[in-house]
């Protein structure tokens, strides 16, 4: 508990630092010495606070989506980005943008969520037919499925001249976040809270259908709830900021190594670590080539893959 508070404090510190990083001059001194209509305060309210909030929201909810996914699939190596959920959301977003460009973002997000749900169900149907639920086969099947859905998406984007648009969605990027343009991400927070409340059910459901039913729980319902949470979070983050790779994979794995697999205990940890990690990566992306920005998906991809490699090698060493 004390450690968790420490992690919380560290993330909070990062978030505060994030408020003071950017092109405009926003410093404590400038804020204190200026009147409420001055630029530093304006920039803080319009740009910095929304950006930091969206980082916290997207980071924590994506990490939790990964955790939920891993628990209900009972596999450490899956996350929404590797089982077809994110790719399906992308396909849905592309199709709704092509057919109904005038729809509000909320409606587009819902279409993306429905596609994400369908894609995730498809994944479950496919792995149900895989004879041995091998620990490596399941993510492999997921990656192949993502590849197929991604190919369909790319085909439509190519045919209709939308490849650059698709690329822009695929690259997670917080540079466009302003007051009034990120609020959908609060839905991610709601989903994360739902995941926390239902944490024990997910843990039980992960023990298998028979076990769950013996304990008087409806296995199907719990699974569906988990899938809806994952699909909604994926869709919200995708339409708001784009794809943030690796997050759902790395953060829950690190936490699991640290404190084990009881979901009620791990949810707060995963949320805090995910948020802190994303804030840190975004700060790096803003600083490294200032005044230009490096998209966060690039930074997360680089750091995330290093951490993941380390995890893989470490696990093998301890198993040997």
């Amino acid at each position, binding site marked *: 508990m004390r450690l968790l508070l420490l992690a919380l404090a560290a993330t909070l510190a990062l978030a505060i630092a994030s408020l003071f990083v950017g092109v405009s001059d926003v410093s404590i001194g400038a804020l204190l010495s200026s009147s409420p209509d001055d630029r530093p305060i304006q920039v803080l309210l*319009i740009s910095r606070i929304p950006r930091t909030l969206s980082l916290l929201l997207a980071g924590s909810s994506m990490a939790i989506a990964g955790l939920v996914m891993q628990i209900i699939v009972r596999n450490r190596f899956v996350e929404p980005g590797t089982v077809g959920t994110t790719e399906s959301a992308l396909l849905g977003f592309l199709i709704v943008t092509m057919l109904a*460009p005038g729809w509000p973002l909320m409606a587009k997000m819902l279409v993306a969520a429905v596609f994400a749900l369908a894609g995730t169900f498809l994944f479950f149907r496919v792995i149900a037919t895989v004879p041995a639920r091998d620990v490596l086969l399941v993510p492999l099947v997921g990656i192949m499925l993502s590849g197929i859905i991604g190919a369909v998406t790319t085909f439509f984007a190519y045919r209709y001249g939308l490849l650059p*648009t698709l690329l822009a969605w695929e690259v997670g*990027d917080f*540079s466009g976040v302003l007051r009034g*343009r990120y609020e959908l991400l609060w839905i991610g927070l709601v989903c994360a809270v739902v995941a926390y409340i239902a944490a024990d059910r997910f843990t039980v459901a992960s023990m298998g259908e028979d076990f769950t039913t013996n304990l008087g729980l409806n296995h199907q319902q719990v699974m569906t709830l988990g899938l809806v949470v994952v699909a909604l979070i994926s869709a919200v983050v995708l339409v708001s900021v784009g794809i943030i790779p690796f997050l759902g994979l790395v953060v829950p794995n690190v936490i699991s190594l640290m404190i084990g697999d009881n979901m009620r205990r791990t949810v707060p940890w995963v949320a805090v670590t995910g948020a802190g990690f994303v804030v840190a990566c975004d700060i790096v992306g803003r600083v490294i080539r200032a005044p230009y920005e490096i998209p966060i998906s690039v930074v997360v991809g680089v750091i995330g893959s290093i951490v993941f490699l380390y995890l893989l090698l470490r696990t093998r060493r301890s198993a040997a």
Partner: protein
Amino acid sequence: MQHHTRISAFAAALMAGALSMTSLVSAQETTITHAQGETTINGVPETVLVQDWAVFDNLSALGVEVDGVPSSNAPSYLADQIPADAIQIGSLFEPDFEGIAAAEADIYLVAGRSRTAYPTASEIVPTVDLSIDNNAIVEGVKTNLTKLGEIFDAEDKAAELISNLDAKVAEVQAAAEDKGNALVLVTNAGNIGVYGPDSRVSWIYNEIGLESAMTEVEDGDHGGDSVSFEYILEMNPDWLFVIDRDAGVGESTGAAAALLDNELVNQTSAAKQDQIVYLDPQAAYITMHGYNGLMLMLDEVLAGLDA
């Protein structure tokens, strides 16, 4: 690089001069020097294939009929000039070599996006590469018009177009004097990039003389450097020229305007003085090396500056 183009243009001019003297003697053989070598063509080509919309744009300005065109991304301002029965010879990046071979054309023109097709294509059909360097766009368009004028026996028309272009550039230069600095933005699916003096619209800085509001930009192939709205606020340019990549999405022309209509951009002097100019996205992104596309954008810039 610019130096290099000058030399090859000079060589081409010399060659053309020499040829015009010998043309009375025998069947006309024209040798064209271009970015990837020399190509010899017999007489004035009749069947013409084009893999690049900017080259099509130039040919259309010269009044040359084209028989094969790319299968995608046709700019709408050129739509009524494309023959209905034109054969489609693959996308901007990927030529359909079988179709090209079957067409038995007299000349095949590539540029920019399709320049890598040259080695393969030149074995099938007389091929000319008309690629232009982004840091000398106006010069490059003039060189290409001259070259095409020679190939298609339309030197007079080419000279006329070139003087039109020069006049237009001079007019816009005059209008841009003392109008402050500028920033060229490209919007893409909610993200913003900046274009600099090496980009596909570099002429706004290099030829028109609007000073760039930023210090340095690395111009990538597609989007320019990614920036935040804060960046635009801090640079505070007097003029914003916007290329609406989103317009291709079907969100039509409003997408970039909606994206830029926010509390930070609205504080810049460009927004306050209503000095945001939206360039034709297809001319700016696809046919920026074509005569009509360039003239179209120059007119848009002029209209903005004079407004």
